């Protein structure tokens, strides 16, 4: 498709349940980022992939969070044993560039996000 697609758009999980959030980047995009956006706050970095390699996972808040991109395209963010504090919008962004932050880079495109509510 023309944009970054995230599914589901909305997810309600009971506390303790495992969830999986999917990101379909733009075809051919090398870099993929996950961000977590809590209500009333800006997005916070979770993790970054270049193709299938997870180059930075420093933002993952706990070992309950796990992300993968096994074939260098679709990515899944998995949250185990969800807690109420995990409630947020999870944003995915992808870029054609290996270094999208560079001045010559084309930046990245964000998906519309998955809103996770843990009850």
């Amino acid at each position, binding site marked *: 498709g023309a944009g*970054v697609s995230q599914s589901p758009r909305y997810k309600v999980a009971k506390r303790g349940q495992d969830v999986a959030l999917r990101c379909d980047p733009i075809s051919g995009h090398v*870099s993929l*980022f996950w961000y977590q956006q809590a209500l*009333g*706050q*800006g*997005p*916070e*970095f979770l993790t*970054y992939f270049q193709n299938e390699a997870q*180059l*930075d996972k420093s933002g993952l808040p706990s070992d309950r969070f796990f992300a993968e991109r096994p074939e260098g395209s679709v990515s899944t963010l998995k949250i185990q044993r969800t807690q109420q504090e995990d409630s947020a919008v999870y*944003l995915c*962004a992808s*870029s054609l*560039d290996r*270094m*999208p*932050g*560079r*001045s010559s*880079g084309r*930046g*990245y*495109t*964000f*998906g*519309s*996000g998955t809103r996770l509510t843990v009850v």
Partner: protein
Amino acid sequence: AQSVTQPDIHITVSEGASLELRCNYSYGATPYLFWYVQSPGQGLQLLLKYFSGDTLVQGIKGFEAEFKRSQSSFNLRKPSVHWSDAAEYFCAVSTNAGKSTFGDGTTLTVKP
């Protein structure tokens, strides 16, 4: 560590009036600075970015921003606001690899 502060949580302006949204950053190296806009239920759309060179940057939708190194600021401006500009605006600073740190956003309300 890099950080971004957007001092104004909420701003209200009348349609046709000028707009300035403030952004202050903290970053050890040359900053790569961005402004994004987010409408309800949508992802982030890039308005403009600054890497080097001319400190006045032009973006989409008639927005511009000025980088002031001495003030560690990157304020967003628009000479005449339209009702469709009502949204949330985020300032961000990025590393070379594209990992961004965002401010907490400023919500813009436009009065008719």
